[in-house]
C-alpha cells in the first residue's frame, strides 16, 4: 500500500482501519527509518496529493524530530544527526520545495518542520545554506512563498538561540522581515507573517537595537503596522511592542511619546484583541520599572545595568483616566467564568500595577472616579469604582491610604451585605481582602479593625460565605488575610470570641453542594488553615476538637467505591486539602507540649489515613500526605518508629517519583525528619533509602532541584546513624566530590538562576560533609574519612577563592571546616594548616557582620585550635 493511502486511513473514522494504518506506519518507521522519513517528506512536497495526507505526513515528520520530554528530545536529535547525508539532503529539499506550494496547510506544516530541522542542525553548524536559500525566496514574486518563508524564519528564530546565527545573517533576516512588514507590502498575509516573524526575531536584534538608525527604522515600521487596516496585523504589531518593552526597555525613551498615543488610541477605540495588547504594553512597562526600582531601591548609580526612565510616572495623568474607562466595560458574569479575560480585567490589573509603580501619586487621580461612581444605580459604575479602590491598595503608603480605608471600610461592609449585584459583591469582598492584606497587621500603628467594628466585619464575612460561590470564595479569602493580620497578636486574639463560629461556618462551606465552583472548597480549607495557624493558646482546645472532625472527613473520602473518574479526581483533591489541613494542625498543636500530648493520641488514626491516601493516583494528594507525615514524625519523635514498617514502602515510592519531582523532593525532606526523629533506629531502612537516593542522583531524568536536598539528606542520615554510615561512604563521597567540582566550575556563570542553584547545591554538599564528619565523631573509624579530607579542604578553598558564594554557603562551609577539625583532630592538623580556608577564610568569617557566619567561625576556630595543638 502506498503511503498516501495509509496516511489517509490513519485519519479514518473507522477505528479498525485507523488502528491498522497506525500499525503500518509504526512498522514502516521501525523497518526503514530513512525511507520512511523520505516518503513522508515526498508526500508533503507533492502538490498532486490530498491536503489531509500531506498535513499528517508533515506532522509525523515533525514528531520524529522533537518531543516535549527532554531525554526523548535528545534521542530524536541524535537519531536525525546520524541519518545518511543524502537522505537528509533530499528531505530538506522536499521541505524547501513545499514552501512554494499553493496549498497553505502544506506550506505552514513545512515551515514548522524546517524550523525543527534547523533547531537540530544549526547549533552543529550544519545546513549553513538554509538562511541564504530562504532569503532568496523573499525576493520571489509569489506572495504565498514569501509568506511561508517569513513564517519559516520566524519559527527558526523561535527554535534556535541567538548565538547560533551569525550577525551578518541576522542583519539580512531582519532586513527581509522588516521589509515584509512595511506599509508598502500590499499583501496582508505577507505583512502578517513578517510582523509575527519579527516578534520571534527581536531577541536576535541586540546589535541592531544598539544602532540608532536601525532601531529607528524598526520602531517606525512596527508603529506603522499598529495602524494597519487589518486587525491581525495591528494585534501582531502590538505584540511586538510588548516584547520590545521588556527586551529593550532602556531604548524606548525616544519613542515613548508616540507609543503612548498609539496605545491610548487602541485602548479607547480598537477591537478587544488589539486593545488588550495595548494595555499589556503598559503592564509590561510597570513590571520593568518596579523590577528596576526594587533592585536599586530608587537610587540609580552608574553601576546599575538599566536606569528607570519613569515612563509610567510621566504618562500617569493621561494613562490613569484611560484605564479607569476600561473598568466600565465589564462582561456580565465574568466572575463565574474561570477563563474570562477582557478589557476591563486587563485595565484593572494594569491599574494595580501602575499603583505599585508610582505609589502615592496614583491616589488623587483615582479617588474622584471612585467617589463619582460608587453610589451610581448602574452596577457597572459601582463595580468599576470598587475595583479601582481595590486596585490601588498595594503601592501607596499607609499614611496616604489609611484615611481613605477608614472611610471606605464601612461602605464596603454595607455593599457586601446589601448590594443587589453579584459582580459588585464579588469585587467588594475582594477589596476587603486587599484591605486586610495590605493595611491590617501588628506592624501598623493604627489598626483599621477595632473592638468596635470587629464583630460587624466578621459577621458580614461569615454571612457572605453563604452567598453565591464566587462571592463566598472572596469572603473566605478576605477572612484569610484578616486572620493573618493577627498572627502576632499575643496571648489574646480579637478573633477568639468568634473562633467557634468561624470554624463552623468554614466547615459548613466545605460541605456546600456547589463548593466545587469558583474553587470555593479550596478557599474555605485554606482559610481554615490560616485561622488555625494564627490562633492563640486561648483557642487551643477548639483546635484540638477540630482534629477528630478533619480525621473523620478524611476517613469519609474513602467510603465511596466504584466512582467515576471525575468524582475520583474530586475526591483526591479533597484528600489533598484535608491532609494539608491536618498538617497545619499537627504543626500548630505540636509546638506546645500540652496540646502535643493530647493530639498525639490521634496519631495512629491519622497515620492510617495518610497511608491510604498513597493508594490514590494524585500527585498533589501524595505530596500533602507526605508533608503531613513529616510534620507528624517531627512531633512524635522516637515514637514514630512504630509506623515505619507500614510507611516504608510509600517512602520508597515517593523517592522513586521522578515524574512528580515535587513529591520526590518532599519525600527526601521527610527522610531528614525521620533521621532526626528516629536517630539510630532509622538504620534498618537506610540501605533501601540510600540505594534510591544514589539512583536518583545518577539519573539524568531527575529534576535538578531535587539534588541539593538529597545531599543534605546524606548529612541527616550520617548524623543519625553515625559510623554505620561507613558502608555508604564509597558511594556517597565520590558523588559529593563530583558535584562539588562541578559546582566550583560553574561559578563563572553569570546567569542569576544558575548562581542561585549553584549555591543551593553547594550548601547541600556542605551539609552532607558536615553531617558525615559529625556522625563519625568519636568513632574508631575516623580513619575512613581521612582520604576524603584533602578534597573537602580543597573544595572549601576554591569556594573561598571563587568569591561568589552567598552567606548561607559561607556559614555552612566554615562550619564544615570546624567539623572536619573536630572529628579528625590531630590527624588532619597538617592538612588544615596548609589550607587557605583555615586562615584567610576563617578570619574573614570571624570578622563577618552576619552573626550566623560568626558563630560557625567561632566553632571552627575552637575546633581547629584543638586539632592543631595536639
Amino acid at each position, binding site marked *: 500500500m502506498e503511503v498516501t493511502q495509509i496516511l489517509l486511513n490513519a485519519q479514518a473514522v473507522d477505528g479498525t482501519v485507523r488502528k491498522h494504518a497506525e500499525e503500518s506506519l509504526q512498522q514502516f518507521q521501525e523497518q526503514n527509518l530513512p525511507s520512511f522519513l523520505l516518503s513522508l517528506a515526498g508526500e508533503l512536497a507533492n502538490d498532486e496529493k490530498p491536503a489531509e495526507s500531506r498535513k499528517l505526513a508533515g506532522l509525523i515528520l515533525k514528531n520524529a524530530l522533537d518531543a516535549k520530554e527532554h531525554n526523548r528530545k535528545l534521542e530524536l536529535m541524535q537519531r536525525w544527526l546520524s541519518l545518511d547525508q543524502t537522505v537528509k539532503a533530499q528531505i530538506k529539499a522536499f521541505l524547501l520545495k513545499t514552501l512554494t506550494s499553493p496549498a497553505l496547510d502544506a506550506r505552514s506544516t513545512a515551515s514548522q518542520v524546517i524550523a525543527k530541522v534547523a533547531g537540530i542542525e544549526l547549533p552543529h553548524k550544519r545546513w549553513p545554506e538554509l538562511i541564504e536559500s530562504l532569503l532568496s525566496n523573499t525576493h520571489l514574486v509569489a506572495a504565498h512563498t514569501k509568506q511561508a518563508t517569513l*513564517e519559516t524564519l520566524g519559527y527558526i528564530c523561535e527554535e534556535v538561540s541567538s548565538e547560533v546565527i551569525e550577525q551578518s545573517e541576522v542583519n539580512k533576516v531582519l532586513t527581509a522581515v522588516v521589509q515584509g512588514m512595511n506599509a508598502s507590502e500590499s499583501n496582508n498575509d505577507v505583512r502578517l507573517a513578517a510582523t*509575527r*516573524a519579527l*516578534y520571534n526575531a527581536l531577541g536576535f536584534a541586540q546589535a541592531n537595537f544598539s544602532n540608532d538608525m536601525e532601531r529607528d527604522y524598526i520602531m517606525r515600521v512596527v508603529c506603522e503596522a499598529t495602524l494597519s487596516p487589518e486587525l491581525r496585523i495591528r*494585534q501582531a504589531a502590538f505584540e511586538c511592542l510588548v516584547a520590545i518593552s521588556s527586551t529593550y526597555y532602556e531604548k524606548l525613551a525616544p519613542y515613548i511619546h508616540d507609543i503612548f498615543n498609539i496605545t491610548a488610541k487602541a485602548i479607547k477605540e480598537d477591537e478587544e484583541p488589539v486593545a488588550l*495588547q495595548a494595555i499589556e504594553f503598559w*503592564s509590561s512597562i510597570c513590571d520593568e520599572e518596579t523590577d528596576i526600582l526594587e533592585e536599586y531601591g530608587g537610587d540609580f548609580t552608574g553601576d546599575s545595568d538599566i536606569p528607570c526612565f519613569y515612563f509610567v510616572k510621566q504618562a500617569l495623568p493621561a494613562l490613569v483616566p484611560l484605564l479607569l474607562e476600561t473598568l466600565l466595560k465589564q462582561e456580565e458574569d465574568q*466572575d463565574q467564568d474561570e477563563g474570562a*479575560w477582557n478589557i476591563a480585567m486587563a485595565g484593572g*490589573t494594569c491599574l494595580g500595577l501602575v499603583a505599585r509603580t508610582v505609589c502615592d501619586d496614583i491616589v488623587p487621580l483615582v479617588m474622584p472616579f471612585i467617589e463619582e461612581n460608587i453610589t451610581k444605580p448602574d452596577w457597572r459604575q459601582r463595580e468599576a469604582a470598587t475595583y479601582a479602590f481595590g486596585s490601588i491598595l498595594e503601592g501607596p503608603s499607609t499614611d496616604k491610604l489609611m484615611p481613605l480605608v477608614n472611610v471606605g471600610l464601612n461602605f464596603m461592609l454595607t455593599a457586601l451585605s446589601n448590594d443587589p449585584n453579584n459582580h459588585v459583591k464579588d469585587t467588594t469582598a475582594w477589596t476587603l481582602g486587599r484591605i486586610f*492584606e495590605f493595611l491590617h497587621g*501588628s*506592624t501598623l500603628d493604627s489598626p483599621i479593625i477595632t473592638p468596635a467594628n470587629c464583630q460587624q466585619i466578621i459577621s458580614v464575612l461569615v454571612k457572605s460565605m453563604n452567598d453565591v460561590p464566587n462571592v463566598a470564595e*472572596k469572603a473566605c479569602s478576605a477572612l484569610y*488575610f484578616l486572620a493573618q*493580620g493577627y*498572627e*502576632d497578636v499575643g*496571648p*489574646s486574639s480579637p478573633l477568639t470570641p468568634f473562633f467557634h463560629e468561624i470554624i463552623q461556618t468554614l466547615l459548613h462551606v466545605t460541605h456546600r453542594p456547589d463548593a466545587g465552583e469558583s474553587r470555593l472548597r479550596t478557599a474555605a*480549607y*485554606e482559610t481554615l488553615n*490560616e485561622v488555625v495557624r494564627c490562633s*492563640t*493558646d486561648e483557642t487551643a482546645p477548639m483546635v484540638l476538637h477540630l482534629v477528630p472532625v478533619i480525621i473523620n472527613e478524611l476517613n469519609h473520602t474513602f467510603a465511596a467505591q466504584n466512582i467515576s473518574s471525575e468524582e475520583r479526581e474530586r475526591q483526591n483533591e479533597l484528600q489533598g486539602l484535608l491532609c*494539608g489541613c491536618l*498538617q*497545619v494542625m499537627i*504543626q500548630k498543636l505540636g509546638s506546645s507540649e500540652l496540646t502535643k500530648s493530647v493530639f498525639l493520641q490521634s496519631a495512629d488514626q491519622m497515620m492510617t489515613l495518610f497511608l491510604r491516601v498513597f493508594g490514590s493516583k494524585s500527585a*498533589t494528594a501524595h*505530596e500533602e500526605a507526605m*508533608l503531613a507525615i*513529616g*510534620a507528624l514524625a517531627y512531633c512524635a519523635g522516637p515514637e514514630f518508629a512504630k509506623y515505619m514498617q507500614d510507611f516504608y514502602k510509600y517512602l520508597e515510592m515517593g523517592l522513586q517519583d521522578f515524574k512528580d519531582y*515535587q513529591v520526590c523532593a518532599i519525600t527526601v*525532606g521527610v527522610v531528614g*525528619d525521620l533521621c*532526626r526523629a528516629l536517630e539510630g533506629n532509622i538504620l534498618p531502612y537506610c540501605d533501601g533509602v540510600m540505594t534510591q537516593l544514589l539512583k536518583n542522583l545518577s539519573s539524568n531524568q531527575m529534576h535538578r532541584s531535587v539534588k541539593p536536598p538529597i545531599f543534605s539528606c546524606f*548529612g*541527616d542520615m550520617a*548524623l543519625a546513624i553515625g559510623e554505620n554510615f561507613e558502608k555508604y561512604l564509597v558511594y556517597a563521597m565520590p558523588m559529593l566530590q563530583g558535584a562539588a567540582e562541578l559546582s566550583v566550575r560553574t561559578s563563572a556563570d553569570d546567569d542569576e538562576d544558575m548562581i542561585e542553584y549553584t549555591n543551593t547545591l553547594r550548601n547541600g554538599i556542605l*551539609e552532607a560533609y558536615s553531617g558525615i564528619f559529625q*556522625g563519625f565523631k*568519636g*568513632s574508631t573509624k575516623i580513619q575512613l574519612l581521612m582520604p576524603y579530607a584533602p578534597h573537602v579542604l580543597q573544595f572549601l578553598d576554591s569556594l573561598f577563592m571563587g568569591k561568589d558564594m552567598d552567606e548561607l554557603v559561607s556559614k555552612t562551609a566554615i*562550619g564544615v571546616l*570546624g*567539623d572536619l577539625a*573536630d572529628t579528625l583532630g590531630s590527624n588532619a592538623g597538617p592538612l588544615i594548616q596548609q589550607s587557605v580556608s583555615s586562615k584567610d577564610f576563617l578570619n574573614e568569617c570571624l570578622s563577618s557582620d552576619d*552573626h*550566623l557566619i*560568626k*558563630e560557625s567561625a*567561632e*566553632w571552627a576556630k*575552637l575546633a581547629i*585550635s*584543638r586539632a592543631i*595543638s*595536639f
Partner: protein
Amino acid sequence: MPPHDVRRSYKRPAISDQDRRRAISLRRQEENRRDAQLHARRLASTLLSLEQASSEPDDVELVPESEPDLHFQHEAAETSSKDPLDVRQASKLRGADARKCRQRNGSVLHHFPSALPNGARTRDASGSGQSYSILDCIFHEADQTYYVIDMLCWKGYSLYDCTAEFRFFWLNSKLAETGACEPPSHYHKYRFSLVPICTCDLSGLQVAYSGAVPYVKDGLLFYNKHAHYQPGNTPLALVWKDESCSQYVIDTDSKGQVPSQQQVVLELQDDLKLVTSDDPPVVFGCSDLEFKEKLGLHSGNLLRFAISDGGLSIVDGTLEKADLHYLGKSNRARAFADSYSKVMFQYMVRHSPLRIEDIVASINLSIDEGNRPSDVEIVG
C-alpha cells in the same frame, strides 16, 4: 503562528496556601537540621558540660561562667592564694536565638515566645535573621526564671568582642527595656532576670557573698572586666564557692548524695591516656589496651573514675600522679570530660578549701600592692 495571549492573574492573591505549606515545612526542616547540627557540635557546650550527677536533676542552681585552666593556677597562686579556683558543674542554658533555649550539650530545653527582641513571631519575617540574640542564662526551676549572666549577641549586634564591663552595662540597660523582666504571660512564657553584679572590692564582695538573692545561690563568679567573651575555659572568668554561699560545694552523684570518694570524668584518648577537657589536656593516668578492649571502649569515650585513697600528688603545681578507680562510662548526655580546675577545686574542697578569708586577704593584698581591685567584677 498564533497570536500570543497575555493573561494576568485577576483577583487572586499572589501566594497559594499550598505553596505556603510547602515553604513552612521546608523552613521547619532547615531549622531542625540546624538544631541537630548544633547539637552534634555541642556548640553551646563549648562553655561547660552538662553534669547529670548534679544534686538537682533540672540543674537549677546559679553556676559559674567558666573554669580556670592550668596556666592560670600559677598566676592565681601569685596574686590571690595558692589554691586554684574551681567551678561546680551544672547545667547552664544558653538561649541561642531568643525563642529557644539550648542546654549546654546543645539540645533545646525550652522553646517559647518571649519579650526578647524578636522573641516572638512578628509579621516581618525577613528581619528575623538579623534580630538574633544570644544570652547566657541559667534556668531556675523554682521560680521559672531565666537568670541572665552574660550577653553575647543582642538584636544581631555581636558582643563577643566587647569587654565584660561593657557587656554587663549593655545587659543591664537593654534587657529591662524589652519587657523581658516582666512577669510571664502566655505570650512571654518565662521571666528573665539579672543577677547582681558588683565591683570586686571589699564591699562588693560582701554584697555578693552574703546579700540575699531570689534564687538558690551557688557560688560567686569572678570576671576580668577587660576580658572579651571566650568560649571554653578561661582564667578571666572564674567561680568560687563555699558552704555559706552554696548548697552544692561538693559534687553529688546522680542520686543527689555526696559520694564518699571524689568522682571525676576523663576522656580516653587514642594513646590510652586519660585526660581532662582542658586545652591542652591534663593527663591523669593511662589505661591499657587490654582494659580498653575488655570493656569495648573507644577513644573519645568519657569514663567515670573515683579518686581512691592515694589521692592526687601535686608537685610544684603540676599533677604527678592520681589514684584512679574505674567506675564506668559516663552519662551519655555529657559532652566533655571534667576540667582540671574542677577536679582540683573538688579535691581542695574535700581536703583544704580556699576560704572567703583568703579572698578577702587577696583583695587587701591587691590594694596594698597598688593594683586596681576594680579590674574584677563579681557576679553573685
